[in-house]
C-alpha cells in the first residue's frame, strides 16, 4: 500500500520533499510542554482606590473620617488603616495583613503624574504614559515567557493592550473553556471525533506544510505576523484539553474570585502565563468611605482567594502578584463626602522573588509623594527621584527576567540608569 501511495503521488505530480521548517513552526511544536511558571497576576482596582484606607494610612488633617492617626495598626514593618468595624463584607485589612503581611511588599508615594482614568490606567498597565502602542506588563511577560501557551495572556478588563506581541484571551465564563477544549470532537464528546485519527493527522500535516511554504514566501510584516499567530493559535489550542480537569464544577459568586478561578485553571494546566484581573467602581467621587469600605475588602478577599487556592493547587510558590490602581484619592473630602482624583498612590507586591514585610517610599502627612533615592531606597526630599510607573515597570521587567528580551527592548521605558531602582525586590 505504501508503494501504491507513492504511485498516487507520482500521478498527482507530487514529490516527497522534506517539509520546510520555520521558527514559528518549531515554536508551535512545543505545545505539549506545559508552562510551569512563574505566573503573573495583576489586580486592578479600577476607578482609583483610597490608599489611605489601606497601606498608606494618615488619620490627620481630616484625610480620613473613619479613624484617627492613633488608630493606625502595624504588622511587622507595615502600617495600615484599621477597617474591621467599617468593612462591608470581603476581607478586612486586619485579617489581610495578619495572613499576608509577612510576604507583602508595599511601595508608597508613587507619582501617577496624571489625574485621569484612561491615561492613568494605560500608564500603570504599561509603564508608558504617552503611547498607545505599548503592551501591558502582563501581556509583555506572557509574550516573553510563554509564547506557545494558548491562553498566555488572560484579561478581564482594564487597559489590556498587547503591543502586538501576544494574543489577548478573554474568557468571560470558565465553562466556555469546556466547550472548546476538545475541538476535534462533536460537541466536545470524547467518543465522537469528527475525523478518524489518521485523517486528522493528515490535515495537520498539510497545514504544517502549507505554513512552511507561506513562511518561505516574501510577505508584508502584518501578513507574516498574522500567519504565524494563526498557525500557533490553532496548533497550541490543543493544549486546552489540559484545562478541563481544573475547571471547577462550581464557581464562587464573588466577581473577582471567579476571575481568579479561571486564571488558576489556566496556570495549573500550563496554558497560561499571566492574568489581568479587574474590578471597578472605585471612583468614589461621592460617599468615598462607604464605597471604599465595600470595595477594598472585596478586593483583598479576591487576592486572598488567589493565594489560598493557588496553595491548594500547589502553584502558590510560582505566583508573582501586583496589586494596583490607576490613581489615588484626594487628601480631602468634597461636598458630596467623596474624594476626587489624586495623582499619588501606592502599589502592593507579593510572591516569587519578592521579599516581604517591607515598605519602600512614603507620602508626607498631606499625602504628597516624598522623593526616593533609587539606590538606597530611602527618602531623599532634596535629591531623590519621583518614582513613576516606568520606574516600577523597569523593576518588574528585571524581576521577571525579561528586561533584555527583544520584545521588551522594542518597548523601552526610557528610565535613566541613575534612576533605576536598585535591589527593589529585596
Amino acid at each position, binding site marked *: 500500500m505504501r508503494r501504491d501511495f507513492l504511485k*498516487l503521488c507520482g500521478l498527482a505530480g507530487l514529490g516527497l520533499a522534506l517539509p520546510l521548517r520555520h521558527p514559528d513552526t518549531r515554536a508551535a511544536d512545543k505545545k505539549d510542554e506545559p508552562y510551569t511558571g512563574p505566573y503573573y497576576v495583576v489586580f486592578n482596582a479600577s476607578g482609583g482606590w483610597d490608599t489611605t484606607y489601606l497601606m498608606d494610612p494618615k488619620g490627620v488633617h481630616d484625610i480620613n473620617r473613619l479613624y484617627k492617626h492613633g488608630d493606625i495598626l502595624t504588622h511587622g514593618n507595615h502600617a495600615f488603616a484599621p477597617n474591621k468595624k467599617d468593612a462591608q463584607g470581603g476581607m478586612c485589612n486586619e485579617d489581610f495583613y495578619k495572613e499576608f503581611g509577612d510576604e507583602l511588599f508595599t511601595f508608597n508615594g508613587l507619582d501617577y503624574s496624571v489625574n485621569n482614568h484612561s491615561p492613568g490606567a494605560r500608564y500603570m498597565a504599561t509603564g508608558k504614559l504617552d503611547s498607545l502602542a505599548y503592551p501591558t506588563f502582563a501581556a509583555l511577560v506572557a509574550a516573553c515567557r510563554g509564547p506557545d501557551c494558548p491562553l498566555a*495572556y488572560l484579561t478581564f478588563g482594564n487597559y489590556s493592550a498587547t503591543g502586538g506581541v501576544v494574543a489577548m484571551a478573554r474568557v468571560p465564563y470558565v465553562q466556555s473553556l469546556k466547550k*472548546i477544549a476538545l475541538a476535534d470532537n462533536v460537541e466536545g464528546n470524547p467518543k465522537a471525533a*469528527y475525523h478518524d485519527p489518521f485523517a486528522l493527522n493528515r490535515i495537520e500535516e498539510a497545514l504544517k506544510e502549507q505554513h512552511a511554504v507561506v513562511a518561505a514566501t516574501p510577505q508584508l510584516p*502584518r501578513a507574516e505576523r498574522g500567519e504565524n499567530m494563526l498557525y500557533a493559535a490553532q496548533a497550541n489550542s490543543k493544549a486546552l484539553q489540559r484545562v478541563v480537569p481544573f475547571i471547577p464544577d462550581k464557581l464562587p459568586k464573588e466577581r473577582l474570585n471567579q476571575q481568579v478561578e479561571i486564571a488558576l485553571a489556566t496556570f495549573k494546566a500550563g496554558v497560561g502565563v499571566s492574568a489581568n484581573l479587574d474590578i471597578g467602581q472605585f471612583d468614589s467621587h461621592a460617599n468615598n468611605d462607604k464605597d471604599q469600605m465595600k470595595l477594598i475588602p472585596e478586593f483583598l478577599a479576591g487576592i486572598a482567594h488567589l493565594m489560598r487556592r493557588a496553595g491548594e493547587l500547589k502553584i502558590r510558590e510560582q505566583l508573582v502578584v501586583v496589586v494596583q490602581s490607576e490613581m489615588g484619592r484626594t487628601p480631602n473630602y468634597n461636598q458630596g463626602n467623596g474624594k476626587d482624583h489624586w495623582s499619588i498612590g501606592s502599589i502592593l507586591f507579593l510572591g516569587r522573588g519578592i521579599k516581604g514585610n517591607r515598605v519602600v517610599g512614603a507620602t508626607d502627612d498631606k499625602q504628597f509623594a516624598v522623593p526616593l533615592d533609587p539606590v538606597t531606597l530611602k527618602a531623599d526630599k532634596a535629591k531623590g527621584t519621583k518614582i513613576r510607573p516606568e520606574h516600577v515597570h523597569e523593576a518588574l521587567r528585571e524581576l521577571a527576567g525579561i528586561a533584555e528580551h527583544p520584545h521588551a527592548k522594542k518597548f523601552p521605558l526610557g528610565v535613566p540608569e541613575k534612576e533605576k531602582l536598585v535591589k527593589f525586590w529585596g
Partner: protein
Amino acid sequence: MLCARLAPLLLFFAGPLFAQAPATCAAVVDNFFADEVWAKVGSQKCLTCHKKGGDGADSKFGLVDPKKVDAAAKDDALRQNAAAMAAIAVSKENGKSRMLQKVVGELDHGGKDVLRADSPEYRILAEFVRRSEGGGKALQPTPDPKAPPFFQGVAMLDDQRLLRRATLSLAGRLPTDAERAAVTKNGIKAIPAVLDGVMTEDAFFERLREAFNDIFLTIGLTDNADTAVLAYDHFEKTRLWYQKHDLSHIKDEKARQQAGYKLANDYRKALLGEPMKLIEFIVRNNRPFTEIVTADYILVSAYSARGYGVFDELKDKFKNPDDPFEYVPVKLKALRSRDKNSKEANQDSLTGNYPHAGLLSTFQYLGRYPTTETNRNRLRARMYYQHFLGVDVLELAARVSDAAATTAKYKVPTMEAAECVVCHRTLDPVAGLFQDYWRFDANFSIYGKRKGGWFTDMFGAGFEGEDLPKGDRWRALQWLGERTAKDPRFATTMVEHVYYVLTGRKVLLPPKGLDDPLYAARARAYSEQRKQVEAIASKFASSGFNLKVVFKEWVQTDFYRADGPTTAIKDACRKAELEDIGLTRMLSPEQLERKIEAVFGERWNKLQGDLAMLYGGIDSKEVTERASDPSGAMGAIQRIMSNDVACKVVATDFRKPPAERRLFPDVEPDMRPGVSANDNKKLRAAMAHLHQRILGRNDDAESAEVKRTFKLFASVVNDAAEAKTVDKQESYFCRPGNKDAPGSRVEDPHYTIRAWRAVVTYLLRRSEFLYE
C-alpha cells in the same frame, strides 16, 4: 535617521538582492522644518497652547493647526508657523534665544518647562535656531525628490481578488457573475460602479450599522432600553406601552406570555437600534454624512414610536406597522415634564421641537456616555472629540510636572494651572454645551437643567474659542453640530472611521520617540497614510459628504490593495515603513458567520453569545474592542468551526444534483485518486474550484497549492484503505438533514466523502479563509 545614513552603505554591500529590493527609509534631505521642527516639536508641544482658543492664545506667538484648515491651505499654515517659530528663534534675551529659554521654563513661560535641555526635541530646536540665525534657509517644506514611491516593491491584489474582498467585506457575499465580468472587462475601473450596486444592498447596511456601532457603541446602553432611553419624567405614560399591549388574540397562556416577552425584547432592540439606523438612513439616501451631527430628526420604528408617544401620527408612514424594525424619520416635540411647572425638566424650544442634532442629541448617545455630578459632562465632551473630530483628548494628556501639587495649589486648577488648562480650555466649553442634559438620578432621566445654572468654575459653553450665544442655549447641540460639520477634522475623522471599518484598525498616530532608530521610517509611514486620508477627505467633502465615496476611494487605494512584497523585505527601515501595510484582518465573529453563509449558503450560527465573546467579539458595554489576534481559545474555535462546517456541508452538497452543488459541481463522491489520469485531473480541477470558492485563490489545477491539497485527499483515502476497521459510511454526525430518518445514511465505501471533508476542513483553517 540612522537608517537613512546607513542605507547607501547597505546597498553597496548587499549586492543584487538589495539592489532589487525597494529603497530603504526615505532620507529627508531638505525638509527640516516640516519633518523635524514641526512634526516633532511644534505640533506636539507648542501648538497645544499657542493656537486659537488655546491657553497661550493671548501671547504674541501664535500658530495655526494645519489639521484644522482645508487641504489647500495646509502648506500656507505650515509656512506661517515656520515664520512664527523662526521669529522667536532668532529673538534674543540675555544673549540667548528666547525660544530656547522658554521651552525649558525660563523667561516666564506660561507653559513652564515643556522640554528638558538634554532632550532630542530641545536639540532639534537648537539646530533650528542655528539655521534660522544663518538666514532661515530650508525652512520651507519641500518633498524629498529622491524618495522612492512608498509602495514601490509591493504587489497589489489582482482585480478579481479585490472584487471578492470588497463584496465579502461590505455585503458578506461573493461577487456575482456580472460583477466578475465587469471587472474582467474593465479592471479596477469597474470597481466603483460595482460598489455603487453593493452599497444599496441590505447586507451592506447591516454591516454599516454593525461597524459604526463598533465606533459609537450605542447599543451598549446598560439596563433595559425602554427605561434607559425614555425617561420616566418625559415618557411616563408611553414608554411601557408593551405592558398593556393587547395580546388577547393568543389564546394559549404560555404562548401569550412568550409573545409578550418577544414584544418587549423587540421594542428594546428597536430603541437601541435607532442611532445606527440614522446612519443607515443618511447613507442609504445619499444624504450628507454631516447629518450625523446636524440631522433635525431621529429614526423610529413602529415599536419605538409607541414609546415616544408618536405612533399615531406616524402609523401611515410605516409599510408594516407590526414590523418592529422598520424605521422612519420623525421630529420629536420639545420634552415636557410630568411636573408642568418644572423649570429644569421642561425643555426650552423656540420651535416647539426637540432640538435634534444627529447622534449627539439622541437619548441613546447621551445615555451611553452619561455624566455625573463630578464629571460635569466631560466624558461626553471627550467622546464628542474622539468620535467626530478624531481627537483623543486623553491620549494627548500631557504629563504634569507635579500633578498633586498643582491640584493642591490652585482653587480651580482646570482654569488656573497651565498644565490643566491646556486640555480643559478645549474640553470644558464643549462639556458646557451638554449642560441641559444634566440628569443622572433615578429613572434614567437624561434631559434636565442644573438647578442654579451651569458651573462657573469651568470655562463657559462654546467651541474652540467661540462662546455659545445665550440665545442658542436651547439648541446648544445643534450649534455644536453646525460647527462640527464645517470643521475640516470632521471629514478626515469620518475617512478614518471608514478605514477602521474596512481594516479593523485605527489609522496610524504620529510616531514618538525621536531617539528610535526607526523614527524616520515610522514617520514616513504615518505621513503617507495621512496624505491618503486627507486626499479622500477632500473628495468626501467635494461630494457633499457622501460616505459611499469614502468606501469607494479607500477600496481603490494601495493601502487596501497591498498584497505582498515582490521580494523579501530584509531591511529594518523598510520593514518599519510597511509594518502596517496590508489588510490581514482576522474576521470578527459576525463577519466569519457571513463569510460561511456566502461560501456555503448557510451560516454556522454558533458564533453567538459566549462563543462570540471568546472569539474576540464585543458586548459594546464592558468589552468594547475586538480582539485582533487569535488566542489559543480562538484557535480552538477555528478548529471546531472547520470540523463542524465541513461536516455539515460535504455530504449535503454531494447529495444535490451536480448543477445545484456549490462545492462539488464537477466531481462525483466515489471518484478515487490514482485510478486514472483523467480522474486525477478532474479531482484536481475540483480542488482548484474549492480553492477559489473557499479561499478566493485562483490556483491552477496543476499548481503546487492544488497538488498539496490533492496529496491530503489521496493520503487520507490511502490511509483509510490501509486501515482495517474503518466504517464504510460517513459519520452519523455528518449526515445531511434528519440523521435518523430512513435513507439518511451516507455510503462512503472508499472513504472519499470523508477525504473531501478533510480537504474542506483544511481549507477552512487557513488564513485566506479566516482572515480578510
